[in-house]
């Protein structure tokens, strides 16, 4: 049982977290941030899929993800 918080204003949309999530719970947002990029967003609608493995946070070069478990 886990969840993540993404600092969308700092996200540069590199997409590395997208690849890292074993459950594919991260996707590109359709809303642009103030930097002019489409940041990623957490989409755990089927609540409880996220295990808090933190692999997304581990690969993020901009330290924009915080993880709870």
């Amino acid at each position, binding site marked *: 049982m886990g969840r993540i918080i993404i600092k969308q204003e700092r996200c540069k949309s590199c997409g*590395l977290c997208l690849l890292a999530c074993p459950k594919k719970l991260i996707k590109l947002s359709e809303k642009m941030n103030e930097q002019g990029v489409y940041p990623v967003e957490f989409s755990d609608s089927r609540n409880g899929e996220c295990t808090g493995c933190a692999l997304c946070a581990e*690969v993020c070069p901009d330290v924009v993800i915080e*993880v709870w478990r």
Partner: protein
Amino acid sequence: MKQVFRRPASLLDVPFHFCAGCHHGLIHRLVAEAIDHFELREKTIGVAGVGCAVFIYEYFDIDVLEAPHGRAPAVATGLKRVLPERIIFTYQGDGDLASIGMSEIMHTANRGENITVIFVNNTVYGMTGGQMAPTTLLGQETTTSPYGRDLQQAGYPFRMAELIASLGGASYSARVAVHNAAHVLKAKKIVRQAFEMQIKGKGFSFVEFLSACPTNWGMKPQQALARIENELIPFFPLGIFKESRE
């Protein structure tokens, strides 16, 4: 629920200016995590090389000294000789360390100076716009090897981690990558081991990171990851090349 991943305390809460998909931010974070893990923040001094690496002082909450291009190992030597109980690390790119700074890194390692060197190898000169580096692969196109790095003209790329490992004064030399989660977790352990060598006074420690430079490789961040896996790792093998047991 409790928080299991947060920004390390030694990393200032400011946005990184690096390009999207650049691994500098990740590597900065791993170094900061090691500093936090051993509670070194108040006794660490960082020495910045020149290149995209020069801005470590914007991101690390520690004392930082800026060195001329290539000279960080010599500058770090001066610092460490005066302050042997402090933790000193340099943070350098491939031009800084393996081109203009080749003499300083070899001699500093050979003397066994008890410092840690973080070497970010992305096979190009990043800050200056993508020129050929000493670690550029044969055939790789850069702004100063537009037809691909040619053996006759430019020689072979350097394998720094192996070279350092061959020197008596080096206590630890390893190469890691950070292009996927499994490698990041491995790299985290290795960075810790490198700093532990310094804490224990074992001598010179060295970690080479294979890193992405999507902008100067002309690739998107995710393509850049594939290049690391398919092109860089075959030539720059990952592993620990030297680990002093004494």
